């Protein structure tokens, strides 16, 4: 982040008064947040209150829905399942994509274009079409119902996006740095660990947040791999609330509100690192 001096602020002023910027952003922000606010408010209402007072603030707020959600969800187990799968998936994706991006962009391996398009292009494979063949493949590899199976599946599905972003980012690292290190006798692995890795922290931080969020929220893969038994993730558990056995929107809202908290926490943790990284990156 650049620190603005007085002169620079003046020049910003020419790009538009900061208040009009804020105003526009504020309108967008309310559109962005209202649906969630609506849901969180619903979580604090009883069913009868929700029926009569859909929009307003809860007049008689209650924690009963949260209590019921915790009770029905076996929350500690589901949280653990989701955490292990999501964090594992993030690690697998980051390692695989960093290595791949390094090989393609910096090592310039043969067949790099093919590999790049193969990896990044796999983004476009529609899940519904490969669902059953994927299940068969994973079953053959002994991965169904195993945590490691879900972690690897997450890793594979997060790979294209992460590889592209890292490739773009690594492209911005000057080759001269690497040349200098090579002349000093470093091999490709040393360069990766000592130079590329520290410089990639901002990209890695972003990818951690982005991958964690979609892995945490995903329903299709965890359902396919882990099923609806003890190994299920939190989202699958919350989806159970939506089953035809519940006309209880406040209860569902409570489940939703609980399920979103970890993703928010990871974002808040990661974004500080993001700021630091951006500072380092820009001053470079």
């Amino acid at each position, binding site marked *: *982040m650049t620190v603005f001096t007085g002169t620079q602020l003046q020049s910003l002023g020419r790009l538009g008064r900061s208040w009009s910027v*804020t105003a526009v952003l504020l309108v967008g922000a309310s559109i962005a947040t209202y649906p969630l606010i609506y849901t969180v408010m619903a979580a604090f209402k009883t069913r009868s209150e929700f029926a009569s007072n859909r929009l307003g603030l809860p007049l008689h707020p209650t924690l009963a829905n949260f209590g019921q959600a915790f009770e029905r969800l076996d929350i500690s187990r589901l949280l653990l399942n989701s955490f292990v799968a999501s964090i594992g998936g993030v690690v697998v994706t980051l390692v695989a994509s960093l290595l*791949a991006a390094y090989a393609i962009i910096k090592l310039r391996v043969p067949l790099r274009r093919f*590999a790049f398009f*193969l990896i990044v292009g796999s983004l*476009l494979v529609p899940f*519904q079409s*490969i669902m059953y063949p994927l299940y068969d493949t994973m079953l053959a590899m002994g991965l169904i119902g195993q945590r490691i199976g879900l972690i690897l599946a997450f890793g594979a599905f997060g790979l294209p996006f992460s590889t592209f972003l890292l490739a773009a980012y690594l492209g911005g690292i000057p080759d001269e740095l690497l040349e200098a290190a090579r002349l000093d006798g470093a091999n490709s692995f040393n360069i990766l660990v000592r130079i590329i890795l520290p410089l990639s922290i901002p990209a890695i931080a972003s990818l951690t947040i982005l991958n964690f969020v979609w892995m945490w*929220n995903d329903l299709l893969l965890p359902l396919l791999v882990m099923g609806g038994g003890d190994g299920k993730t939190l989202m699958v558990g919350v989806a159970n609330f939506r089953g035809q056995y519940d006309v209880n929107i406040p209860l569902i809202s409570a489940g939703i509100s609980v399920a979103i908290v970890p993703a928010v926490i990871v974002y808040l943790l990661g974004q500080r690192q993001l700021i630091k990284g951006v500072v380092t990156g820009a001053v470079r």
Partner: protein
Amino acid sequence: MAVARPPPSPPRIEVRPATRSPRLNLLRTGRRTDDQRSWWGLLYLLPALGLVLPFKFVPLVSGFVDSLWHLVDVGGAGQFVGFGNYARMVGDPEVVAAFANVGRVVLTLPVWVVSPLLVAFLIHQRTPGWRLFRAVYFLPYMIAPVIVGSIFREILGTSGPLNILLRSVGLGWFAQAWLGGINTALLAVVGVSLWSFFGLGVITYLAGLASLDESVLEAAALDGAGFWRTLLSIVLPMLRPVVSYWAVLCLGGMFIWMFPLLFSLTQGGPGYATMLPEYLVYLTAFQFNDRGYATAIGIVLFAVVSLASFWIVREMYASSVARERA
């Protein structure tokens, strides 16, 4: 007003890729490394390929084989029909409707590409509260799509918050059953998806903006360039790779990630007004029990979206390479 001309030479050199802005430099013929070293480098690709091949491509090929059969009973053996499933698609009004719909959705792509950039650029101004805005705009993306669908089904209902708002500001004539109208339903679905994915675009663009050389922006500001001119003539060209990547991501999203939203919002209805190929694949496989046919539709979907993405990437890079050489 002074016309903003491209800044003089020294800043221009800084703008060139390879130093500051992250660029995809695959298409540049760069330096060649020793061949000896390169072949060892392939080892670095093993983890990625070891994931992508068994989890994506093996199932894809297997799916393609499935699409050559008429598979009806769940778990049954089926009959070989070769490309019969593909031929059937051509005359099938439901398949045609689904692809026509996705075509309509793709027409909204410019909005998807430009509006997050606008917001990102505004946030990039670092006006008071910019960190809060950045977090807030990202918030919708953190809500699971299937839940977003539930929430918006509430909000877009005939007596839901949106219509109440419209009525209260005197736009009551505009209030309607958003998810029930033949024309408005698809628009509503697109709007909800945009709301959901918007934050990802903002973050992507912010990352791109953060790696831009600030001095160029400052020089432009000193030259008297207005907000829009800076955005469109200077920032947009510099962010070409990010823009094209985000465009491809949106395109992919439109073709293959709308499923949870469709599932919880409209189930493809009313009639087939919001039926998209991805959802049709699901219905055909699990509701209509026609699995071979469903997989065929999915394969065609994959082919279409790959071609479209490939075309976009080529267009963006062709023009950018041409600009560089100019």
